[in-house]
């Protein structure tokens, strides 16, 4: 079980959260300026490292906040995300 740190509630069990998908990809500002290849890549290719990934989690059975978490796909270790706004 992961322990996820919610900025409002502190460290809580994973069972209080719902997984919300990868967070690394930013939607391009002007998709119409992209080449077809870049657009398809944005749509279909996630980063898939054996190492840290950024992902969204929803504190559904807690305060309801959406948070961004940096988790290692090999060790499950969670580090605070510095880019988290």
């Amino acid at each position, binding site marked *: 079980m992961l322990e996820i740190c919610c900025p409002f509630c502190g460290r809580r069990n994973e069972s209080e959260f719902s997984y919300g998908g990868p967070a690394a990809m930013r939607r391009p500002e002007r998709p119409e300026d992209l080449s077809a290849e870049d657009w398809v890549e944005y749509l279909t290719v996630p980063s898939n490292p054996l190492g840290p990934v950024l992902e969204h989690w929803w504190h559904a059975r807690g305060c309801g906040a959406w948070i961004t978490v940096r988790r290692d796909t*090999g060790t499950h270790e969670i580090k605070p995300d510095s880019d988290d706004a």
Partner: protein
Amino acid sequence: MQRYSFFSLALNALSGHRNWRCAWRSPQLQKRYDVVVVGAGGHGLATAYYLARRHGITNVAVLERGWLGGGNVGRNTVTVRSNYLRDESLPFFTRSVKLFEGLTRELNFNLMHSNRSMIDVVQTYGKLRDLQRRQLIMDLYDSSYERISVEELRRRVPPLTGGGQGSRLPVLAAFAHRDASVNRHDAVAWGYARAADSLGVEIHENTKVTSISRDSSGKICGVETTRGSVRAGKVAIAVSGHTTTLTETVGLKLPLRTINLSAFVSEPVKPLIDVVVNCPDVGVYFSQSDKGELVIGGATDLGQSFRRDIKQTVFEDTVCALLELFPSFRNLKLLRQWGGHVDIAHDGSPIISKTEVPGLYVTAGWWGGYKAIPAGGEGFAHLVANDEPTRLIAPFGIDRFRNLDFIFESGTTTVR
């Protein structure tokens, strides 16, 4: 190859089983091969076998980072079935189911292949509509799917005593897929390995490929391994779960995510159930092994994961789902649990394809790919040998993403 038969068994019994020959050799690693297959799992070994058997390409090395069959081929829940959704998927998977049926004989290795129906238990109307649609499509492709009543379901699956009228999700209906089967996973890996070896293929364990090499013209020229460089004009990747870590070494990006699937088994009990039971609305499925253990699987761990264990939350959710429908299983002791990491493509269908790098071939996206080992290996071998896909695997090329021609498949076993 030393053929296995009743007589060889009897003969070897007389000498106390001390004279069996090794099922495959442990040769010296050469500097150069015609084809390097990366990964001695089901798909890698089957590919090597069909390269040698069907295409006469025998100067082949299968390089494996761990031990033969230690990956997902030895970690899955051995459900072979063809209840798929798409016009592209159904012919491919029915072919694989058919190949499995003749494989014991072809490989001269007892796969303990056992035909049994798979029964899908429906507890929501959304699922009912989904499976009715599946049935209409499967009817066109000679894959059986038949709606059965709740009474018939309870007769065929006696321990299913939950899901009654007053429950959270009453059982609404069920569908029976008659073409499903289970067999022995180690035997699939070992059978293909032994047959490939006897045709001249070399299998090298403890040989991790660390990167793929290209020559100055951009063509593939071999791989770097923990035991030095190996040259080859064609490199075929079959590393289930690790595909992107390897293809990224030549700058190739693929629409794959690596996820963890897990399973556990109970203590052995007397014969209880002779079908594979799948309960997609709560997220659990199981069958009973020849030893009597219940082999139980659940949903994937949702985030990306390269782990080979089971996560406590996934384990608990699966056990809760199981007990909701099968309350008597409360008394069962669970003996072992494990997991594996597999990759899944953006549309849920496999990728069996050439790549933009000349000489580099990929078979990936096998998150339910045990059933696909024979047809996947057959198709991939043809592609590697001829640079052209067979009709069955042609839809599964990487180009489909560029053209947004997704072949969307969803799991049949999971809720999440």
